[in-house]
């Protein structure tokens, strides 16, 4: 295994203009792990990556790579390689020289460089493109050159800053699989930044969900999707329905929350006390038509066909409720205007302290 672990020990980062982009953060990324940092634009992802690669020193705290304190070592002295958000290929050098640049910097002879570059270009399926200029490649090919160039210096940690964001969907899906395969093959620690949750969920061993300079939750994709620990994590990753209210009653691990739509029972991982302001989150696919342990009335207002699935949107006294059902011919039709009972199981819903939410698509579009 070639990868090394990365530890952030109460790292906080304040820019010279006084803006604190990263609040004090503790984080351990295991050696050889595919670790994603997921968060909305401007939350501080790039800032963290630049602190790990050595372009900025943390204002407080320590960055350790393989147990070694990195304070004072610049980017050219760290066992990391960064793939920039805009790739930053060298435009005047042919592809193979781009790939071999790190070897050149280590004083390796031209023949050995060319061979190693060829090997890496073969790895990323660009074996016959070595003599082109970066401007003569497609977006996906450039992407792979950037990856080969970073791998050439045999980094222990590869840092990737939204490298796929410029690609179209098909290519992006293909590159995800390829990145994952390269990571498995090389055993290098990957720290992968994205604001695309699908990307994070499909590729990562673990994910950190970040908002406003704070890492809100670290866990596997399953943990974060099924057991979100903050209102932000619940609303940012995947779709969710939200009910706001006040805790009315608590019992072993569960709680009841009083909402405008009624009193609902759900998991209470934070052991909130009665009286506290809280939010209940439940995924659209956990909603049941016909009611369940928790129930309320709503009427259908929209019905979007997605092929195998149907996305139903209900109105429950002004609150929009999303319900995903399989398209098995039993789903209600739009002309069923009468209110119908909806519900969900207590075990599939979670009550969390009231907190900042991810912006909805509507809010982003209104900006």
């Amino acid at each position, binding site marked *: 295994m070639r990868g090394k672990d990365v530890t952030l020990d109460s790292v906080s980062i304040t820019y010279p203009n006084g803006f604190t982009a990263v609040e004090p953060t503790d984080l351990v990324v295991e050696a050889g792990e595919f670790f994603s940092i997921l968060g909305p634009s401007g939350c501080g992802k790039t800032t963290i990556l630049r602190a790990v690669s050595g372009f900025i020193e943390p204002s407080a705290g320590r960055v350790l790579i393989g147990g070694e304190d990195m304070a004072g070592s610049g980017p050219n002295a760290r066992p990391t390689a960064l793939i920039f958000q805009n790739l930053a290929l*060298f435009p005047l050098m042919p592809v193979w020289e781009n790939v071999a640049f790190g070897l050149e910097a280590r004083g390796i002879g031209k023949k050995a460089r060319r061979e190693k570059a060829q090997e890496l270009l073969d790895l990323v399926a660009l074996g016959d493109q070595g003599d082109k200029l970066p401007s003569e490649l497609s977006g996906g090919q450039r992407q792979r050159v950037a990856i080969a160039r970073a791998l050439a210096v045999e980094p222990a940690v590869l840092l990737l800053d939204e490298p796929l964001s410029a690609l179209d969907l098909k290519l992006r899906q293909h590159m995800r699989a390829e990145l994952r395969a390269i990571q498995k093959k090389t055993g290098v620690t990957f720290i992968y930044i994205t604001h695309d949750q699908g990307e994070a969920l499909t590729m990562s061993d673990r994910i950190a969900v970040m908002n406003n300079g704070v890492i809100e939750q670290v866990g596997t994709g399953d943990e974060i999707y099924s057991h979100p620990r903050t209102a932000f994590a619940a609303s940012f990753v995947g779709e969710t329905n939200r009910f706001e209210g006040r805790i009315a009653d608590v019992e072993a691990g569960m709680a009841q929350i009083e909402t405008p739509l009624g009193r609902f029972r759900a998991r209470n991982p934070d052991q909130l006390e009665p009286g506290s302001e809280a939010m209940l989150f439940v995924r659209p696919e956990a909603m049941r038509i016909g009611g369940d342990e928790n129930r309320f009335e709503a009427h259908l207002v929209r019905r979007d066909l997605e092929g195998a699935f149907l996305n139903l949107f209900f109105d429950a006294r002004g609150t929009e409720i999303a319900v995903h059902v399989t398209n098995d011919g039993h789903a209600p039709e739009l002309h069923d205007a009468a209110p119908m009972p909806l519900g969900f199981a207590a075990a599939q819903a979670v009550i969390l302290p009231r907190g900042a939410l991810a912006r909805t698509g509507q809010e982003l579009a209104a900006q």
Partner: protein
Amino acid sequence: MTDLSHTPPRRRLRLLTADGLLSAYTWAFLVFMFLPLLLMILSSFNDTSPPSVTEWQGFTTKWYTFFWMPEETLRADPVLRSLDRDRFVSCFGNSLYVAAMVVPLSLLLGLAGAVLLTRWRSRANSALWWVLLSPMLAPGIVLGLSALVFWSRLGVDAGLFTIVMAQTTFIAGYPMLILMARLQRQPVELEEAALDLGATPFRVFRRLTLPYLAPALASAAVIALMASMENYNTTMFAKGGACTFATEIGAMARNPNGHPPVINAVGTVIIALTVAGALLHTFLSRREQGR
């Protein structure tokens, strides 16, 4: 031109006069710029001295051949006889020598200034910018005089060396501006990526920054060369007993019997070279884009 067919008459009149004024001004400007050049070129082929275009005495190229015509022919010509050809050639040699010093010095200083101002972000930047550019804005006479005074205090006699020093102070500003403009367009990420791959700052400079700057360095060199060759006022004050091409032409032009048309011939050659250079540059950059 504006389409006037749908405009009401009064507005039409106003537009006409505005358009008319603008084109009259444009023509006046062009005449003002190019008529003297045209007259100079014409008179350089006229067989009379002092130069004239109104009294045409016949076509000649002797003002051009002055520099290599045989000694006897030179002696036979009443106008050319009085000119010191050897001195003229040696002053031209001095100009080449000065330019050969000034161009690399200005490129080095300009490059250093440009890198400093674009890559070293600090509060002192804007102050530094003014300090580095102020010689370009200062009157040339002041630069020449201060170089003279400064170096004579240090015990250096005025001569080619002081010319080089005086010219470099302001010519270095041109490469700096040209290189800054290009450096600002190079994304910082490229240099960061190279550093991240383990390159030393020096290698980053040599492998990325310099190749990227190469075209700008070439144009900066040409501009510095021209600025150095044609400089008169600063050189005049810093030259001491030495002479350059520009100061020598200046001296010839002050001839009490009117200046010899040789100057017009030299001027015509300079114009021809400049136009050829500009055409070549256009041609080369077209081809560069076509690639």
